[in-house]
C-alpha cells in the first residue's frame, strides 16, 4: 500500500472511530482512558477488532494512536477546575465512592498509563501534576462533607 493511500485510510478509520465509538464519551478524560485501554501495555500496539476488520490491523492501530494523542492534547489544555469536574463525573459514572476512588488513584496512579508513547516528558509531567492536585482537591472536599448517620 502506498504511503498516501495508507494515510487516507488512517484518517478515514479515525473519523469512523470518532463517529461511532468516541462520540459516546462526552468527556475528554473518558475518551483518554478508553483509548489508553485499547493499547497493549507490553507492545504499545493498539487493538480494535471492528476497526481492524473494516480496514487493517496496522491502519486501526494508527487511527487509535492518532485519536489517543488527540484526547491527550485535550486533557493537556484542560483547566484544573475542569479536570476536577471530569474526575468527579468519571467517578460517579463508575459508581465509585470518593474515598475508594481517590485512595486507589493516589496509590496506583493509573493516569500514568494514559499517556501516548511519543508524548513529551514535560507534557506528561504537567498532566500528572494536575491529576495529583485534582485528587487532593477531591479528597479535601470529601473530608469537608458532613458525615451522615445511618438514619440520615
Amino acid at each position, binding site marked *: 500500500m502506498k504511503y498516501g493511500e495508507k494515510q487516507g485510510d488512517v484518517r478515514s478509520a479515525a473519523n469512523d472511530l470518532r463517529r461511532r465509538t468516541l462520540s459516546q464519551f462526552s468527556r475528554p478524560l473518558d475518551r483518554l482512558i478508553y483509548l489508553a485501554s485499547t*493499547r497493549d501495555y507490553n*507492545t*504499545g*500496539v*493498539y487493538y480494535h477488532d471492528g476497526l481492524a476488520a473494516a480496514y487493517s490491523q496496522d491502519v486501526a*492501530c*494508527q487511527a487509535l*494512536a*492518532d485519536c489517543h494523542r488527540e484526547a491527550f492534547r485535550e486533557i*493537556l*489544555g484542560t*483547566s*484544573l*477546575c475542569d479536570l476536577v469536574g471530569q474526575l468527579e463525573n468519571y467517578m460517579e459514572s463508575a459508581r465509585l465512592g470518593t474515598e475508594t476512588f481517590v485512595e486507589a488513584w493516589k496509590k496506583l496512579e493509573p493516569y500514568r498509563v494514559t499517556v501516548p*508513547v*511519543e508524548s*513529551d*516528558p*514535560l*507534557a506528561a*509531567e*504537567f498532566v500528572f*501534576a*494536575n491529576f*495529583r*492536585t485534582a485528587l*487532593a*482537591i477531591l479528597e*479535601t*472536599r470529601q473530608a469537608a462533607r458532613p458525615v451522615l448517620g445511618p438514619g440520615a
Partner: protein
Amino acid sequence: MIQLLFFLTVGGVLFVFLLLLARRGKAEGGAEALVNARQALLTLQTELLPAGLVGRIFAKDDLEFVDSEGSQEVRDLFLRERQKVALLWVERVKDEIRLLRYLHLGSARFYARLDLKTEVVLAADFGLLLISCKALELVFVMRGPFAAPRMVGTVANAAARVCDISQQSLAFLTTSDLNALGGTSGPGQVSA
C-alpha cells in the same frame, strides 16, 4: 637553549593550530549537530513553545481555582507541582536553545548564508534567552511559578524568533537527508 625555546614555541603554536583545525573540522562536518538542532527545533516548536501549553502551565485561573477551595494544604501541593513543571519547562527550553546555538556557532555558517544583521540579531537573542532562562529559574525557585508572567512571555517570544531563524538555516535539510543522517522526521510518528 634559545634554539630549544624557539622550537618549543613553534611546536606549541603548531599544536594549538592543529587543535583549532580539528575542532573546526568537526563543527563543519557535524552531521550529529545538524540532526540534534533539527530535533531541538521540532521539540521547541511542537512541544515547548505552543501558546496553549505555555498559557496552561502559567495559567492564573488554576491558582484562583485552588484558592477558592480554601485549603492551604492543597494550595501548597499545587504550587509545588506547578513549580516543578515550570522549572522543567525553562530547563528544557534552555537545553534546546543551547543545541540550536551550537548549530549556529558551527555548522550553520557553512550551509545557511545568513546576513550579518540576522547573525547579530540571532547572537543577541541567544544571549538574552540564556540569561533570561537562568533568571526565570531563580524567580521560580524563590517566588514561585506565577511570579513573572511577562518574563515567561519574553522568553517564549525570543525562543520563537530564534526558532524562525534556525528554521531558515536548516531549510536545506530535507526529510530524506535527515533520515540518511540518522535523525527522525518529527515527533508525530506512530511508534506503536
